[in-house]
């Protein structure tokens, strides 16, 4: 049961990691890449860490329970820090004047 849950969560997380990393490569400009990087990372690392936290409860003991709690602390931290880091990077890009890619410009170039 626990193993099934772990596999399910990690595989889902891995799939999202994969999809958003593909997005990181394929998206046309800095801002839209940031969408892939910021959102994908948050959910997928949360899912994978949750799966691993559940797995470490596999052989239940107090020590393992604390390990799970620590992993959950990392999750809380990533939940707070990841959107903030995303914001910091995209703000830096905005401040330094990266032009956002828009459909209109694309058409104008054609």
């Amino acid at each position: 049961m626990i193993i099934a849950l772990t596999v399910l969560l990690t595989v889902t997380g891995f799939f999202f990691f994969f999809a958003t990393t593909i997005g990181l490569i394929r998206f046309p400009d800095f801002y839209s890449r940031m969408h892939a990087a910021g959102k994908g990372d948050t959910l997928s690392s949360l899912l994978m860490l949750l799966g691993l936290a559940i797995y470490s409860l596999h052989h239940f003991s107090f020590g393992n329970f604390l390990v799970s709690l620590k992993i959950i602390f990392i999750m809380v931290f990533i939940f707070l820090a990841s959107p903030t880091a995303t914001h910091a990077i995209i703000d830096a890009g905005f401040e330094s004047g990266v032009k956002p890619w828009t459909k209109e410009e694309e058409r104008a170039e054609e």
Partner: protein
Amino acid sequence: MIWQIDLMVLTLIVFCAFSAVMVKDLLSAAIIFGAYSFLMCLLWTEMGAVDVAFTEAAVGAGVSTIFMIAAIFRTSRSVKHRSRGRRFYKLIGFFAAAVTGMVLLYGQSDFPGWADPNSPASSHLSPYFITHTISDTAVPNIVTSVLADYRGFDTMFETAVIFTAGIAVIFVLRQYRRDQTDVAGTDEVAYQSPIIQTVSRQMVPFIQLFALYVVAHGHHSPGGGFQGGVILGASFILVGLSYDLRSVLKKMGEGPNIIFGNLGVFLYAGIGAVCILLGANFLDYSVLSRILPATDSVMARSHGILGVEIGVAIAVMAIMIAIYVNISSHGKYDKGL
């Protein structure tokens, strides 16, 4: 060792190292070097060298990246590009590097294999450490007991080296002006983002407590004085990054900071000196059981290690803050990164 992951990470590291050297923009090089440190930490972890990995994570990935960025911020971002007349020197440099590399590779063949059980290190020294650590010092983490007890003299001078580095940075960069106090500079612009300020404000206490945990539990888990001190310094650096330099200096002014740096080294050497006063060798903590209440000589060594680790942590923290403040403000203590 897991060879699949080992291979992948090693390839990644080589890619990172090459691109960090190749790229012309220094800021990009610093950022890529951050990725290099991340991966290096992963490699150490995967080889089982947990304490080294911890140091790499704390120093390489976090603080040194910021130091480099601060240095680039205060100097220049691009390499001076000279197109002509350099080819000859480059050729010489390449030749020298190639020869050195070849000599190193040749010398490497005399080393024992990775984790070779018959090598001198693992047939004489390591078994002693592994079998005697618990009975000698009651410290489960062998790395800590080796660092702070068996080779305590070595670590003391490592701390002194870091201290010297901090003093050197202060000597070279610090500019004193007559009309200026410690907390000067009114034109400081804080980070223009309430989001980053609020989030890092909430995080700083947890980072500090985690750092103290790392120092206090160096006996049982990876970590210790160096790592804890760096993380503690990094928490102050985060305050400086998300607010401004003044809020760092309000918490840890220039004077107290230098005093703390001295105090750390003094604590380390002082514990050693107390051992001499009690009639034993320098840094032989077991004799401390005479002045510490309710401890036998084994526990005295354990507590001695803890005291030394605290000294290292204080010194490293103070030096990290001093280096950051001096580099990022050009030694003027007015405007940070």
